[in-house]
């Protein structure tokens, strides 16, 4: 639960001993140190009564700056979350603890790095127990969506938005066709479970496997199962693939080197002036300007509606260890609040409002104006809600060849979206700090600041 800006968890006294023992293990301490596991400390009893009544045992967790959900992640991030989960499952087994649940909802991202947040998923393991109970959940929520993504091109985030619990093997079986079904990894992840499914229904005995004959055997079996998961995870690793957007808005093709340099200079100067701690890059595409902001010390959330492109941003951010969190979000149809009573998971806008010192909208609003026909005024209002301070917009006028391309012949519908009209609407809402034209293009850069309310 939240208390201001702090995250607390009330723990059942029966679970508290195990939790404390787990947090004291070498694995837990190393993982918290390296950032793989969210830092968690017990709240001293004196403070507990101030926070919550009637609870004995409360833990405080380190807060993750921008929570995101698996249905907003590109496939690469789902894969990274899976790798983290399996790694922790294997390491904890060596210390006498086990991971009792394996779902992407246990993972959040700090910039491009995944962090496991559900510390209560770890439980003391019976040393003679050889079963990894969350195996099927790991298959459904991580492996099968990644497999569908890799083999059928299905966007992993869309699968998880419709189904919190992932994909059933039976579903993928139908998609696979007679030859694929016999190939690994389909054979072990999809076909065998489907063929064995009817055998389990008679009794619940399978959920209570016999204990192994020795601790060594139990460990051997458990490690074998986890290794096979890891092997399958490698087989379903997302491949870099082209998409409509990965080739379209390549800056090198739209801008000459001089024009690109001008744009970068403007953005760099804006960054130096604004010094944003947090930045939102809307329509980030290959992430060039997200990386620019991150190199200037800002924490960046980069959103783009194309999962392939978001995945490419993640690969680079992860490789360069930059604080850029790429999410698959279309700002004109952002992630809704879903779950129980439409309240369980916060919408993207609820998480994002007022959270960013700088919002970048570079060569993107014309897409939103044309494709989704969002009124200009409403778009600018949204930008003002998302930002705490600065908004940087690259305005593309109707004369621009790219604009004309997306208009698909209906120029008369959009001819009113002139530079003059844009400036008039924007200056009603924001204070103009500076602007510049990109020489040779019908594109103008504007740095705005939210108006301070007159007191």
């Amino acid at each position, binding site marked *: 639960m939240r208390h201001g800006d702090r995250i607390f968890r009330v723990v059942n006294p029966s679970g508290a001993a195990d939790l404390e023992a787990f947090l004291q293990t070498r694995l837990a301490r190393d993982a918290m140190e390296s950032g793989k596991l969210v830092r968690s400390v017990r709240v001293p009893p004196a403070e507990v009564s101030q926070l919550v009544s009637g609870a004995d045992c409360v833990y405080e967790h380190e807060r993750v700056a921008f929570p995101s959900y698996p249905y907003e992640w590109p496939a690469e991030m789902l894969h990274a979350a899976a790798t983290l989960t399996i790694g922790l499952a294997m390491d904890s087994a060596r210390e006498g603890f086990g991971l009792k649940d394996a779902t992407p909802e246990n993972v959040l991202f700090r910039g491009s790095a995944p962090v496991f947040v559900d510390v209560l998923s770890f439980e003391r393991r019976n040393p003679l127990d*050889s*079963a*990894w109970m969350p*195996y*099927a*959940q790991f*298959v*459904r929520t991580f492996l099968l969506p990644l497999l569908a993504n890799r083999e059928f091109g299905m966007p992993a985030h869309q699968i998880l938005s419709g189904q919190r619990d992932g994909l*059933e*093997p*039976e579903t993928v079986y139908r998609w696979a066709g007679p030859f694929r079904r016999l190939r*690994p990894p389909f*054979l*072990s*992840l999809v076909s*065998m*479970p*489907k*063929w*064995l*499914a*009817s*055998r*389990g*229904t*008679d009794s619940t005995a*399978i*959920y209570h*496997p016999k204990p*192994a004959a020795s601790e*060594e*055997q139990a460990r*051997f*079996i458990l490690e*074998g*199962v986890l*290794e*096979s998961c890891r*092997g399958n995870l490698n087989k379903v690793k997302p491949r870099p693939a082209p998409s409509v957007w990965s080739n379209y808005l390549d800056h090198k093709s739209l801008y000459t080197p001089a024009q690109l340099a001008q744009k970068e200079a403007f953005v760099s100067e804006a960054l130096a002036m604004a010094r944003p701690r947090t930045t939102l890059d809307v329509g980030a595409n290959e992430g060039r300007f997200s990386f620019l902001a991150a190199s200037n010390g800002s924490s960046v959330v980069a959103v783009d509606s194309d999962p392939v492109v978001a995945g490419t941003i993640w690969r680079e951010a992860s490789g360069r260890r930059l604080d850029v969190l790429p999410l698959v979000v279309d700002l004109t149809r952002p992630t809704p609040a879903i779950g129980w009573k439409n309240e369980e998971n916060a919408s993207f806008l609820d998480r994002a409002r007022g959270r960013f010192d700088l919002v970048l909208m570079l060569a993107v609003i014309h897409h939103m104006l044309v494709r989704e026909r969002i009124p200009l005024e409403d778009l600018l209002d949204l930008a003002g809600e998302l930002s705490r301070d600065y908004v940087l917009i690259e305005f593309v006028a109707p004369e621009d060849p790219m604009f004309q391309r997306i208009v698909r012949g209906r120029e008369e519908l959009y001819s009113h979206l002139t530079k003059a009209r844009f400036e008039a609407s924007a200056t009603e809402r924001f204070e103009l700090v500076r602007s510049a034209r990109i020489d040779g293009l019908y594109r103008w850069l504007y740095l705005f600041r939210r108006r301070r309310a007159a007191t």
Partner: protein
Amino acid sequence: MGIGLLELIMNKHAPRNLAIVTLRTLLLLLPLMLATPSKAAAYADPGTGAFVYQAAYAAFLGGTFYLRKLLDRFWSRRK
């Protein structure tokens, strides 16, 4: 299936590993062949399939564990 077949065969303990590999395959197929024919389930609780598979794989691994111990003892006595 699972841990690399190839790496088992490629290392210098070839004859012993070939024996292991053959016996492993038999061990995997045996329980499946002997399993009772499935009833036409009117309602199959989703999620059981993967779990049953894991249980079968775990049983198979348990078998290879014994086998490996057995073969280790056999080969070391041979030396």
